[in-house]
């Protein structure tokens, strides 16, 4: 039986310290307060002074409360019984199901040996042309959605979750509004995807320490399923809240802040989560899609900036649409040469013309005269925006490619598109 400590030396924010011996770094403890029992994790050892971050936060903790060390690090139950369930950031049921305690696995495990990785090779179909056609999502990719608050990023995530051809979806919610949590739950339920979904949700009302656990717990479970041969899609929303939770804890523990108050290890912390995305050569895979909200639409803010250096591209969500400029899937070249012969050509050609359309729009707004070519571009741009960029468009890649040719044919003569004649002969829609 483990010793119980009944004197808390200090309480700062959600971090408490007790004098104890024989405690290991990263160990869990239970803190019994008058509001119930909360878990806490050891995050600093100094002689016999043990600092713990209390999952339920520091509010209402008394110096006389009991602390009992559990002798093990943070773990989560693993098994098929997780499917269809909803948990909090500390792994407690959020639905009315039973607490799971068998087959516990540690979280935040070691990194994958780079030599055991393989070059990604399969696309993940989402039914969204701006992704499938222009910035293909690839199995084992890690991609954030950069957007400002108020954009429909959670709707986008939910749609991808519903449509992506994967075996299992793990949703990690951090600082989620309760409404958004219900939205995810309802959408997945209605779409019949709930049975292949596991949710770890920290809502904005929950204690901040639980927010820190969400990515690790989600990814630890994902990793086990991937090792059992499943293709897992992990959705994390919103990683900026995760970074802010880290900032909060770091500052209460008097760590020297580096950039805008964030701790100096922000990059390493984010990277150790995102790098969990992997394709195991003879087993399953983990693909990560994460939302990063950019305060003030500022991509140089430390969170999106560090994220951009870690992830394999990004989707910019702006004005309710995925922007073709600035969005990038670094891995698309690995797969889009093997889909359909016209994929790369349509991808480049349509974007070049769309870029010309944006220039024309600028000219138009400055009051310059519109030439016949400009008029064509204007028509093209409008069609492109409504039939390709609009998030409600839902067609498979091949349909999107055909649609691309239709739009081109509706606006231009074949030679104006700059596409190879060979492709034009094959794909240009024949006039009826």
């Amino acid at each position: 039986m483990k010793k119980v400590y009944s004197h808390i030396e200090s309480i700062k924010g959600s971090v408490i310290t007790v004098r104890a011996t024989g405690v290991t770094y990263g160990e869990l403890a239970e803190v019994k307060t008058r509001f119930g029992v909360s878990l806490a994790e050891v995050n600093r050892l100094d002689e016999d002074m043990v600092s713990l971050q209390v999952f339920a936060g520091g509010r209402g903790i008394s110096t006389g409360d009991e602390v009992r060390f559990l002798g093990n690090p943070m773990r989560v139950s693993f098994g098929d019984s997780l499917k269809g369930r909803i948990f909090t950031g500390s792994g407690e049921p959020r639905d009315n199901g039973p607490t799971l305690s068998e087959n516990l696995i540690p979280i935040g495990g070691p990194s994958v040996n780079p030599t055991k990785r393989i070059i990604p090779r399969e696309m993940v179909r989402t039914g969204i042309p701006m992704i499938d056609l222009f910035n293909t999502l690839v199995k084992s990719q890690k991609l954030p959605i950069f957007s400002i608050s108020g954009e429909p990023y959670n709707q986008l995530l939910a749609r991808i979750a519903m449509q992506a051809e994967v075996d299992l979806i793990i949703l990690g919610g951090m600082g989620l509004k309760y409404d958004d949590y219900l939205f995810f739950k309802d959408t997945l339920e209605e779409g019949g995807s709930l049975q292949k979904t596991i949710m770890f949700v920290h809502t904005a009302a929950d204690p901040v320490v639980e927010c820190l656990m969400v990515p690790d717990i989600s990814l630890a479970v994902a990793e086990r399923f991937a090792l059992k041969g499943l293709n897992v899609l992990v959705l994390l929303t919103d990683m900026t809240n995760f970074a802010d939770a880290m900032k909060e804890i770091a500052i209460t523990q008097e760590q020297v802040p580096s950039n805008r108050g964030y701790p100096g290890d922000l990059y390493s912390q984010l990277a150790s989560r995102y790098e969990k995305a992997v394709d195991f050569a003879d087993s399953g895979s983990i693909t990560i899609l994460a939302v990063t909200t950019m305060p003030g639409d500022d991509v140089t803010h430390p969170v999106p900036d560090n994220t951009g250096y870690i992830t394999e591209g990004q989707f910019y969500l702006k004005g309710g649409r995925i922007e073709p400029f600035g969005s990038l899937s670094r891995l698309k070249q690995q797969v889009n040469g093997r889909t359909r012969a016209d994929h790369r050509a349509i991808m480049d050609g349509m974007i070049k013309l769309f870029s010309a359309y944006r220039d024309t729009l600028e000219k138009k707004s400055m009051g310059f005269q519109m030439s016949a070519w400009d008029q064509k571009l204007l028509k093209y741009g409008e069609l492109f925006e409504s039939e390709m960029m609009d998030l409600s468009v839902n067609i498979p890649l091949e349909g999107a490619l055909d649609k691309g040719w239709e739009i081109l044919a509706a606006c231009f003569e074949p030679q104006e598109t700059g596409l190879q004649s060979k492709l034009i002969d094959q794909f240009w829609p024949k006039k009826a």
Partner: protein
Amino acid sequence: MTNTKGAVTGVNGNMVSVRVDGTVSMNEVAYIVVGGKRLKSEIIRVQGDIVQTQVFEMTKGIKVGDPVEFTGEMLAVELGPGLLGKIYDGLQNPLPEVAAQTGYFLEPGVYLEALPRNVKWSWTPVAKAGDRVERADLLGTVPEGAFTHRVMVPFTMYGSYTVKSIKPAGEYAVTDEVAVLEDESGASTRVTMMFQWPVKRAIDCYAERLKPVEPMVTKTRIIDTFFPVAKGGTYCIPGPFGAGKTVLQQVTSRNADVDIVIIAACGERAGEVVETLKEFPELLDPRTGKSLMERTIIVCNTSSMPVAAREASVYTAVTMAEYYRQMGLNVLLLADSTSRWAQAMREMSGRLEEIPGEEAFPAYLESVIASFYERAGIVRLKDGSKGSVTIGGTVSPAGGNFEEPVTQATLKVVGAFHGLSRERSDARKYPAIHPLDSWSKYGGLLDASSVAWAHSFLKRGTEVGQMMKVVGEEGTSLDDFLVYLKGEFLDDVYLQQNSFDAVDASVSPERQKASFRSCVRILGSSFDFKDKDAARAWFNQLRQRFLDGNGIEWGTDAYVSAEAELKAFIDERVSGLDKKAARIIESLE
């Protein structure tokens, strides 16, 4: 192991405090014993009987009172035949062998031998019994891939020795004795083909350091012609994310005109290393006809691997580079990215509660960066041959802003600056090296004044372009407009290069000279166009022809005829040639 005993007194992230009983030295390696595993760490501060160590592994599970063992040795790497073609982590653990032992994941506490012990090398002795030798003097040689690997007196053996015995030619493993050396007091030392050297000390067994003058050809036009790098020099590539730093490094690692390339993937994406790992064994080195992997060493400590080992990885890499330099070889070290290395220092500095400098980087950031880049250099060895280490480091500035401390500290010490710009990468102008911001202090393939003359068109062209944005094309004179077109032309056909095109990806110095000569002809010619549309249309055609030509293999019949057609196309239009241009063309004939 020394007799010093220690026990853990505190844990904060990857920093562990230890109470010691006995003597310890700064930067000594210590092992923390946790549940049967021994976690490697390095002493980074000594205060009375408490020392702080940075642990090269995850620290979960360590508790106060855990025993600590001290080695008495600084963090060191093994040097000897067998390094080439290897893939190491930041502490020189061979990753494929680690994978064979622990599977998919990097389990803490697994340290394997860097050099294979079971490989036999075919040894040819050079020194003879009775010879007087000093450290780094040649004892014998073994063939390693395409190179003759020199087996030298270990660099750690200071003083002079007499060769007492030396093994005859034959097959030996790295741990077998190849010679016995006797020092002045008569004590003898067994010498094998391998020895250890502390990574944070520069290897200094050469006669003198020389000035870097000979260009290191990268086969990337904008670098070789406009912003060259010299063998033994240093350069940095700062750029925001997505600007193509890593692609540029990969292209350089393939094409650079050096003997050995060491890639230090430091705190970056694992996926990028994987591409190199899988592709290099398939690619042929045009210089030796063997696989590129045989001239490459990869040190990879990717972003999710332990941070302290990331800090060590650049030193591990540069030490191996210096070792091969001692064999009279030209070595290129590519570090991607030095910002992640600096951030690792920042994390540790924060945990040590040092007073932070700018953006919380430690105050010693600049001196550490400077001393790292200073390990590059071209040297004359004691036997008169020359060897060099060239260092190219990428920098990932926060927010793409070059004013930040790591970029600034790096710019102070490097000889060339290849600044990548978001603006150019967004416009798909690759390599996205900004032609107006970048600079180089080294001499390149071409004479500096010719390059400066061509460069002036880029500058003036950009100025005209800026002006046109305000006053419109109508308000620009035809002469200015021509300068603008010429600048754009040079940018499109010469500065930009398609790294995915088999031919255009690597351009030989001869071809660069020929191509530059053709560009100079256009830049220096007068034209007589009736209006701007006509000028633009002609330049568009010219550009297309030039770009098509860039994709044709050098020296083939197709190339010769394309060249002749292009010349005819130009001849038809130009009138008069600037004197300066004529002189440049003449000098390149």
